[in-house]
Each structure stands twice: as C-alpha cells, then as structure tokens.
C-alpha cells in the first residue's frame, strides 16, 4: 500500500531535464514549461546544449539540458540550481552535479546506469551517487524498459519504442508536479500531426509515466505551484532570437515597409536569419550572403532602395561591419544592426554569453560616428527592443545597433501575443513631407529633429546622389570645407542626441528610498531583478534602474543617479557601461560589479556582493 502522498506547496521550483543529445530533452523541457505556463505559472527557460554537433552517445560532452524555472510569483531567471533533475544517463548526472541543491530530487533512468554507461561517463565505481557525494533523494525507475513494454502492442520497432522514454520521464514529472496530461497530449498531437502512430505512442508513454508516478509515490514528495493570474490573452513560448525576428516584422508592418535582412550565419545569431528566411508568406526578404560585410552592405543597398533593412550578427561580425555602419551613418540611411553578443574576444566563447560588445557598438568606427544603441533585457523584450530599433532607424534616418546576447537568444519565456495597435506608429519622413522654402535636397533636414527626408529610387523629382564623402549642409554636394565639416559633425551628433526626446524616460523599480541603486543594461535584467527582490525580502532598501536605451540615454538619467548615495553598475564585462555613464553624467562615480565568465550571473552571488556594498 502506498503511503499518503506528501504535497509541498512551493512558490517556485527549478526543473532540469538532462540526457544525451538524442534523448529529446529539449522537446521534453519545452512541453513541460509550456504546460506550466498554460496552468498559470510564470516560466523562464534555459536550453543548454553542447557545442559539439554529434558527440559520442553517453559521453559527458554530449549532454543536452533544458532548465525551466516556474513559479507562482514573477520569475526573472531560469534559476541558479535545480530542485528536480531528470538524468537520463550517468553523464547527465555528472555534468549537472554543480547545478543541484542538497535537497534536490533526482529522477534517473535505471536502465541506462549499467557498467558500460558508467564507464562512458568516466565513473570509476558502481555507485555514481556516492562517487559524486550526492545526498539527494533518488527516484530510480527503469524508464526505457517500462516505456518499451507499454508500447508492446503498438508494433513499433525497438528503437522507436525506446525513443519514447523521454515522454515516460515527462509523465513522471507531470505527476510529481500535478500537471494534468490533456494539454500535453494535445501538444504531442500537434507536434506529430503527420505521424499519428508516433503521436499515439508518445501519448501512451506519457500516460504510463504518469501512472507509474502515482503508483510509486510512497517515498517521494510531490509539489504544488500555485497559479499566478496572468493578464488575459493568448500566449506562446518564445525565445529571444524569435522575438527579435518578430519585432522587426512588426516594425516593418507598422512603417508600411518591406523587411529586408542581409545576413551571414554566426553563432548565436543564426536563428534570426533562419526564422526570417522562413517568413516568405509575410513577404520578408531575408537572405544569406557571402560574408558579414555583404550582409550589411546588401541591407544598406535595400535601405537606399526603400526597405526597412537589417543585418544580424554576433561580436566578430559586428567588427567586420564597422566600416559599412559608418557609411549608413554618414549617408543617414535607416538600418538595424543586431548583435547577439557572445563570449569574446576574437572567436572567444561562441556559445556562451557576455556583454562585452557595448563599446564596440558605441564607438567601434572611424571618425565621429554616433549611432543609436539599444539593448534588450529579456527574451520577450527582444520583440519590443527590435520594434524600437526599427522605429528609431526609420524615424531618425540612422543605423541603430540592437544588442541582445546568447542568454536571451536561446532562453525563452511565455509571451502574451501583442496587440500591435497598442504599439506606437512608425512614420518614415519622405521628401513629400518636406515643407521648407528652399528647394528639396537630400540632406535638407527637419529643423526640429534634424532628420533628413528619405527619397527612394523610383520617386519622380527626387533623384539624388549620396555617399560616404562629407557633404555640404545646404547643397548636399560633396564638400571639404572646414567650417561645413564641423557643422555636419555637430549636426549628426545632435540628431542622435535628440532621439532622447522621443524615447520613454528611465524607470526605477524597487524601493523609492533605496540605500542602493543597482544599474544594469541588457540581458542581465532577470538576475539583477531577482537579486533586488531577494534583498528586499530580507528588509534591505534596494532599487534597480535597468537600461534599454543606451545611446542616447533617457533624459532623466542624471536626475535618477543624483537621488542615490550608493550606485552599483553590474555588467558582464570589465565596466564598459559604468565608464560610458561616467563620460555622460558628470560627477557620477558608481561602484562596479563585473563578471566575465561566459555564464549568467548567479543571483545568490549578486545578493552577497550587493549586501556587502550596502553595509560597507
């Protein structure tokens, strides 16, 4: 007889699915996190797959993981350590040993913990738990065998039947977290809509796993995560790269322009090229060219020809695009340059995340070459940030560099499908809008915004020549005249500075009368926010100013900083944003917290450091 099940109610929990690259852990994790989101939990996910494309089966380098953080209150990060680990083989157990808590529950597939499996993961004894010093609760279930046996009447070959073991594991986890299976069944039916037999088999394995859980629950506690009332609407699970792609499409739609993407494959930005090149039904022209330079140059050509043009890349590619960004800048053409930052310098850590391209984005060009720079703060915020990048590019006739990072690009969370009517309009300024008394010239400007008018080839009466040479302020013809050059340098800078009047003011969250203001930008929002909340729960007075608009800064930036005695700028580089802020805000001398490990911040570490600062 099974004992009474012990149900623990938790505010939040971290679950990590881990197995061999071929074990289907990404799908398992995605279904579980979507299921939780549908049930009203907040979610944040972090897929963590190997750099190797096909590592040897069962090896440490072949472990693929998917971590999801779910909760009844706001969830900001995929979580530091797992409460529940599903380890489909010994390698998965070993690789994740540092991602566990002392109280974690570990579910293993006992069928793949034989001598040969242990050898592949370089265990030297036959007790991997003892060898790793683990004291966690272990649920050892013969997942492969049971999944296979349950499918005996399905007429599947051995390999196909065993492949359903991930769904058996998912069923077990669903039982553990009291997730009803009907939604998961629906997802599987959709996923395998063209292979009904496979869909059926997977659903059977899922159900068997769930039932197995309810039959053995004697020794394991189960969890309940209360639902959080999310805003009504339709939701989907989305990662940062997809959100970025959709943000560009939305901006093009709002502006009434065709979207053009010129790109070249580079980790971790490639998904943007892939997503947009699949969007032909929406008329998107997203094309792969011969190199990074061609990617941006075709985009500049498309911009000249009247498209909303973008190029997507990562740090090394941004370096290659520098000269072309300068061209778009002096030609004053709209252009969105997406840099999905990764670990640098040089080839660096291609699959890891950093914030080390900020100064490259701000200053990495010859000459005085100011461009707008904005940064996305969460996977779903990539949509808004890309939308804003498109808006600013078109309305201010300038390149805009959008900084995201590898962590945002691959991480996902539930996203309420936006109503584009609630987004601001995007209004390109065409020469027909020019109202000046002097005849129109390509560099005649709107006197208030200093933005020139966009004459597009094909327009009658506005044929003109532009280029990378300095031009005369009045006639737009080539000019090397010294005073004119000074004036043009000042004008182009002023044009960018004036964007500050068109963006939202900087917000501060947390305690109004805080003793410490945390300042961050970009993809660290979740970790900084959670650190702040954790400190506030402990009675500390802390606030967070997290920047999306980097250049120009929001108009109220200096005013905010003046309010706080202690400010710490936390970022994943050697202090690039802190130094930039010091150059922009006179008398600003913040503390700095910098980590450049290619890994997300660890919340507990942030709390520790910030508390020390507060008490110093």
């Amino acid at each position: 007889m099974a004992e009474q099940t012990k149900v623990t109610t938790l505010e939040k929990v971290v679950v990590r699915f881990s197995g061999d690259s071929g074990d289907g852990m990404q799908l398992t994790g995605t279904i579980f996190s979507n299921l939780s989101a549908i049930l009203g939990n907040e979610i944040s996910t972090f897929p963590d797959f190997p750099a190797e494309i096909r590592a040897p089966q069962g090896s440490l380098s072949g472990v693929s993981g998917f971590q999801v953080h779910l909760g009844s209150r706001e969830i900001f990060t995929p979580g530091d350590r797992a409460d529940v680990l599903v380890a489909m083989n010994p390698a998965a157990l070993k690789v994740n040993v540092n991602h566990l808590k002392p109280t974690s529950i570990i579910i293993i597939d006992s069928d793949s913990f034989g001598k040969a499996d242990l050898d592949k993961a370089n265990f030297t004894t036959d007790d991997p738990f003892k060898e790793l010093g683990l004291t966690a609760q272990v649920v050892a279930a013969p997942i492969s065998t049971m999944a296979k046996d349950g499918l005996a009447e399905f007429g599947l070959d051995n390999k196909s039947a065993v492949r359903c073991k991930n769904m058996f594991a998912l069923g077990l986890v669903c039982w553990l977290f009291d997730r009803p299976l009907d939604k998961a069944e629906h997802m599987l039916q959709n996923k395998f809509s063209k292979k009904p037999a496979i869909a059926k088999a997977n659903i059977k394995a899922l159900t068997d796993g769930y039932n197995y859980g309810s039959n053995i629950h004697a020794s394991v506690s189960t969890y309940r995560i209360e639902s959080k009332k999310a805003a009504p609407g339709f939701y989907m699970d989305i990662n940062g790269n997809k959100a970025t792609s959709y943000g560009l499409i939305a901006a093009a739609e709002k502006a009434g322009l065709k979207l053009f993407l010129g790109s070249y494959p580079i980790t971790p930005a490639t998904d943007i090229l892939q997503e947009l090149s699949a969007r032909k039904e929406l008329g998107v022209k997203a094309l792969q060219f011969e190199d990074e330079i061609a990617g941006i140059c075709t985009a500049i050509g498309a911009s000249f020809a009247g498209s909303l043009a973008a190029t997507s890349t990562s740090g090394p590619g941004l370096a290659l695009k520098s000269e072309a960004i300068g061209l778009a800048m002096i030609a004053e053409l709209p252009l969105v340059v997406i840099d999905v930052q990764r670990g640098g310098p040089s080839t660096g850590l291609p699959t890891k995340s950093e914030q080390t391209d900020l100064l490259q984005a701000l200053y990495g060009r010859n000459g005085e070459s100011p461009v707008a720079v904005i940064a996305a703060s969460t996977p779903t915020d990539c949509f808004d940030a890309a939308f804003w990048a498109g808006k600013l590019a078109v309305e201010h006739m300038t390149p805009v560099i959008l900084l995201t990072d590898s962590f945002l690009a691959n991480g996902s969370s539930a996203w309420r499908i936006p109503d584009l009517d609630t987004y601001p309009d995007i209004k390109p300024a065409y020469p027909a809008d020019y109202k000046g008394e002097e005849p129109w010239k390509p560099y005649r400007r709107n006197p208030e915004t200093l933005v020139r008018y966009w004459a597009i080839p094909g327009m009658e009466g506005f044929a003109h020549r532009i280029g990378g040479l300095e031009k005369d302020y009045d006639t737009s013809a080539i000019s090397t005249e010294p005073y004119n050059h000074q004036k043009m340098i000042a004008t182009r800078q002023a044009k960018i500075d004036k964007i500050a009047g068109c963006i939202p003011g900087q917000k501060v969250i947390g305690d109004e009368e805080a003793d410490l203001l945390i300042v961050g930008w970009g993809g660290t929002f979740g970790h900084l926010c959670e650190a702040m909340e954790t400190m506030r729960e402990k009675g500390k007075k802390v606030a967070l100013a997290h920047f999306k608009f980097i250049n120009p800064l929001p108009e109220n930036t200096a005013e905010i900083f003046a309010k706080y005695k202690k400010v710490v700028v936390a970022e994943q580089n050697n202090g690039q944003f802190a130094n930039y802020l010091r150059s922009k805000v006179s008398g600003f001398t913040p503390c700095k917290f910098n980590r450049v490990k290619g890994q997300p911040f660890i919340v507990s570490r942030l709390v520790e450091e910030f508390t020390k600062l507060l008490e110093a």
Partner: protein
Amino acid sequence: MEQTTTYQPKDYKSDQYVRWCPGCGDHAVLNCIHKAMADRGIAPKDIAVISGIGCSSRLPYYMNSYGFHTIHGRGAAIATGVKTANPALTVWLATGDGDCLAIGGNHFIHAVRRNVDINIILFNNKIYGLTKGQYSPTTDRGFVSKSSPYGTVEDPFIPAELTFGARGNFFARAIDVDLKNTTEVLTACSKHKGASVVEVLVNCVIFNDGVHKQISVKEARAERTIFLRHGEKMLFGNDNGKGIVLDGLKLKVITIGQDGYTLDDVLVHDAHTPDATLHAMLAMMSGDLPVALGVIRDVEAPCYDAEVEKQIAEVQAKKPIRKLHDLLMSGEIWEVK
C-alpha cells in the same frame, strides 16, 4: 509597358563638375554611358548607379539618376541589395580594377555567380590612380610602380577569366577611345538580364599613361583587336582581311585567301551558347591573336532578384497569412481568460 517618353544623353547628366584628370579615359566612358542610357530610354528616376571607391567610382555624381557612392570594394554587395529589394530598378555598378578585383573580389564573384541583374562597368586602367600609382590586381607581372619599385612578382587577374570562373553569363570588353563600340557594348550590357560585366580598358593619363596603347592607337586597332558581334564572322584587320579559325583545340589567325583558307573557314561568333569554352578562349586572346572586344558572352539564365520574388510569390500562393499577428495566432498558443 509602352514607352512614351524619349530621352537624350543630357537627361542623364548631372550638374556636377566632372573632376577626373583632363585626358582620363573615364570622361569618354561617361559620355558613352549617357548615350547608352538614352538608347535604352529608361527614366532617370528608375535608375540607380552604385559605386565603390576609386577614380571611376566618382561616376554616380555625374549622373542625373539616383546614385550611391559607397565604400571600397562593397559596391557589388550594395548594388545586390538595391536590386533585390526593388527589382523594378535598373541598377548599374561603376567599379575599377582595384575596387572590383582586390578589396571587392569576393562580392564581385558572388554577384556574378548569383546572376543578380546588375550592369557592372569595370574600368580597367591596371593601376591605383586615386592613391597615386600603386599596382593593381590587373597589373602585368614585373610592372614597376610606387609600391613595386623593383617590379611586381605576381600574375594579374584577367577579368574575363575571373567572370567565367564565377560562372558569369555576360562579359563584354570595350576600349575608352572607341566611343561608338563602347556605347554599343554598354547598351547590350544594359539589355542583358542578369549580372553583366563590361570591362572597359581605360587610360590613366597620370600614373599609367599608354597602358593600352598597343591596341588603342588608331593605326593599330584594326590589326590588334577584333570586335565580336553575335552571328557575325570573326573578321578583323584592314579591310577585314583576317579571320579567326579553330585549329585543333586552339584559335588561330588566318589571312583569307592564304594557305587555302576561305571566308567559310572563319568562325561565326555565338555569344548565346551556354558552353563558355570558346568564349573563354576568345576573351583570353593575346600575343599573335587580336584582343577581343565587343560582347563575348551573352547567355540567358535565371536572375537572383527575380528568383527571390518568385519564391515569395510561390509561398504566398500556398499560405494565406500576411500579418504577423495572424502568424503568431496560427502557432502553438494558449489562452488565459
């Protein structure tokens, strides 16, 4: 559409003072471009002239069309973007031997390989003029220049060979001093659908004066060059007394009436044959053989820009979704009430 307006060369000329050196071959080519454009009768508003960096890349400023003077070597990529974004435009690329074949070599071969419908005018003076006299990728081996004071120790590109190597479908050659034929070649280039390369041999009066003089001086031109036209016999020389014949696997110059050769033996130029073997042989003629001018290869093939649009139309014919919101709602979603 029926063409209603006729244009004169002056309609394509801008009001800018032309800043090339007096005596530079580019002046003549510019006039030929204006004439060729008037011949084609395309409205200046529908023309975009793109260029990179170098003497010849100043050209867009002297046109009355839309124009974009870009950065060194990248003209082909920018022109690709312009044409792909709006295939309705007629796109020209003005480039030089350094811009096109050194720093821009990669973009050039890929634009040719993709067969983007752009007209590429390659001004070949075998020297860097704007930086004052360094050797270029088309400079002959051993040439003494400011950056090769003891002569170069490298072989040049032959633009035609590179074009064919990149699977180009249109290649023509012209010489700056021959205005009539240059105009004819540029007109043909503009008519061709796809990446069309015209190498114009131009003189740099300051840094490489007389570089093409062996074939450019009027007295030598008839004997040392041959102007090829599709469907016509390959005849040249004073009174067209000489012809090109195929001797085994090689081309040979014969004099009609000598050694038993008659007019019937002379090859007829077929610019439209897909096989580029003979085109390459003709384009590479030198030494005892005359330098080939005119349209050497002109073969129809699918254009990149049109194919991109075609693919979009094909997908749209199958998928009714046109708005982002509809796309999102058609995916894996759930509702919170």
